[in-house]
């Protein structure tokens, strides 16, 4: 069904078919970008719109080898990476605070969910965990989306989840101390 819609857009430049494709795929793309931009919805949605615009313009280069959603994730991630070059404060602010002092630990204590802890990871670590656990992409698909070697994907997933675990331990230990 999805492939037929893609073919219609490729063949006839069909806006209606592309709108259907957008309805089917907008949620994961927007969720992904919102998490990457630390829940800055305005910027995330702007990036999502740019992603779909770019997808429409370049849809002829999609050959159906990967899932259409993976292809969209690749564009979305590229959009995000190029936007972070201009707006570094959006993605690195929380991570950079780690270098400061004890404030980082204090902030961790205030966090209550795993989603909250995500913002303490670097953008690429966040992306890799989200693609794998939230959006069910395989290691191979993530390697294509993020344009990194397969081995790096596996290592990064393990490292990032351990990092999250250590953040949660700090958060939990402080909670226990308070009690």
């Amino acid at each position, binding site marked *: 069904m999805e492939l037929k819609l893609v073919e219609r857009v490729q063949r006839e430049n069909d806006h209606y078919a592309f*709108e259907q494709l957008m*309805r089917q795929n907008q949620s994961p793309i927007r969720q992904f970008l919102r998490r990457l931009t630390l829940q800055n919805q305005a910027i995330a949605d702007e990036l999502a719109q740019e992603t779909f615009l770019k997808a429409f313009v370049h849809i002829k280069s999609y050959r159906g080898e990967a899932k259409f959603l993976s292809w969209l994730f690749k564009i979305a991630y590229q959009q995000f990476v190029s936007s972070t070059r201009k707006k570094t404060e959006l993605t690195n602010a929380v991570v950079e605070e780690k270098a400061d002092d004890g404030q980082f630990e204090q902030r961790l204590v205030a966090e209550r969910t795993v989603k909250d802890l995500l913002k303490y990871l670097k953008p690429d670590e966040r992306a890799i965990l989200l693609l794998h656990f*939230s959006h069910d992409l395989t290691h191979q698909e993530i390697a294509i989306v993020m344009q990194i070697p397969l081995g790096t994907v596996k290592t990064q997933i393990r490292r990032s*989840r351990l990092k999250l675990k250590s953040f949660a331990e700090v958060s939990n230990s402080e909670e226990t101390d308070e009690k």
Partner: protein
Amino acid sequence: MKNDFLDDDWLKDELLDEYINDDDFSFSVVKKIELHETKSKVAFYAALFLAITLFGFLFLADLMMMFSGNSAETLANAQKILPFMQMEYVGIFVILLSFVLIWSFEDFDLI
């Protein structure tokens, strides 16, 4: 906070986000697509218009003379500049370009 980071299913549940879907988003993107298409068309029409103007300037005088029955020796304008050009082909080319321009205006609702 529960700490089960080595359990894939638990981590998946923890990272799950609410489903987002609104028609405004798709509508905005479609508008952007239309704007993008219009912009790229405008560049195309501008180039087409320039091409027709240039060809008109270079060859119109010659074509007029040719169609009004004057002999090839009296051809004045472009034949002197570009003696290798065949006026008949140039004439057909200019007419073709004009048709493309008119068709484009109608087809893409530019006017």
